[in-house]
């Protein structure tokens, strides 16, 4: 019997009915691994909040404010709350199991992710005045009679403390702009991959 590689190859495939692997599940693994990557990214965003709150606390102590520890604790509270809130959001994302097909899975993950991101964007914007207001109010009464320049040690900034309340709309507006840019360019970018997969599956289904 001729055992040349050409003959082994030819005879090996002669009269052989090849079984074609099924292609309908083509996107399953791809979708799952893509979403897993995204969830890992989101997890990082949540867990980074903990060291951030510690840094905020240390920053207050470094500033050597009166009652620095109390202020440190107060300013760390939002970070801690956001951390636990983020963990809940993470859980809700993980709850979306792969049940039916990759298309439904991707669509539901995308919708969930966008609703979470929008919620977080709004939360960030609305928390600014809520968090700043007690601080401004405290400073307004505590530093009564001083000018803003005297409070912050800035020469020739002789505005009355009532102007401190202007910080509320200014910071809220700035946060809104940053949150909007972040949502438009960073968050939307993370869903682009999912959008591409979804449109590819839609194209495949035509």
């Amino acid at each position: 019997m001729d055992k040349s590689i050409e003959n082994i190859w030819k005879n090996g495939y002669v009269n052989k009915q090849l079984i074609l692997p099924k292609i309908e599940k083509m996107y399953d693994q791809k979708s799952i691994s893509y979403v897993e990557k995204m969830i890992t990214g989101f997890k990082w965003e949540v867990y980074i909040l903990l060291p951030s709150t510690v840094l905020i606390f240390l920053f207050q102590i470094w500033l050597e404010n009166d009652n620095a520890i109390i202020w440190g604790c107060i300013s760390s509270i939002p970070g801690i709350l956001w951390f636990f809130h983020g963990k809940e959001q993470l859980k809700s994302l993980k709850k979306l199991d792969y049940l039916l097909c990759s298309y439904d899975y991707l669509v539901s993950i995308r919708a969930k992710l966008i609703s979470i991101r929008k919620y977080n964007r709004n939360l960030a914007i609305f928390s600014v005045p809520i968090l700043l207001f007690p601080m401004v109010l405290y400073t307004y009464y505590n530093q009564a009679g001083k000018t803003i320049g005297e409070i912050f040690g800035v020469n020739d900034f002789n505005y009355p403390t009532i102007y401190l309340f202007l910080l509320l709309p200014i910071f809220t507006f700035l946060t809104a702009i940053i949150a909007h840019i972040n949502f438009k360019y960073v968050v939307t970018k993370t869903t682009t991959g999912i959008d591409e997969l979804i449109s590819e599956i839609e194209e495949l289904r035509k």
Partner: protein
Amino acid sequence: MSSDFYITFIQPYAGIIIKICRAYSYSQEDFEDLYQEVCLQVWRTKDNFRGNSEWSTWIYRISLNVCLTIQKKETKKTPQILSLDSVPEVQRNDSSFDQEDSLSELYKAIKQLSDIDKAIILLYLEEKSYKEIAEIIGTNFSNIGVKIQRIKNKLKKLLK
């Protein structure tokens, strides 16, 4: 990918894809993933086909590109350990058992070649001309004959 596209442009050439994917995969699962990825890539790149070569040549090119790309990624992750059991199965019946066994041994030997040698010998075994092989691989036509001879000698040694 419409079923029409699959039936017309992929299914008749599925044998090519299967043969190539089998040489670059180390388990049935890998093999199926590769096959699916190749089909998808053929569909994605269908508009890039200019008709300068045969459609089958295009399929060879895409299949090898996908296999080589994925192989590279996988090699970076974990080095592959080869065993005879890991050679993906294609349908087997009793009458062709001996042939299938030799084919598995041949695949096992092919898998021990470098990525490019693997591609060259697969195209040679598929009776592609030296010119076509050079075109698909993107290498110099004049070296192909010598390379094939070297690869064949290597395979013979591995099969002993």
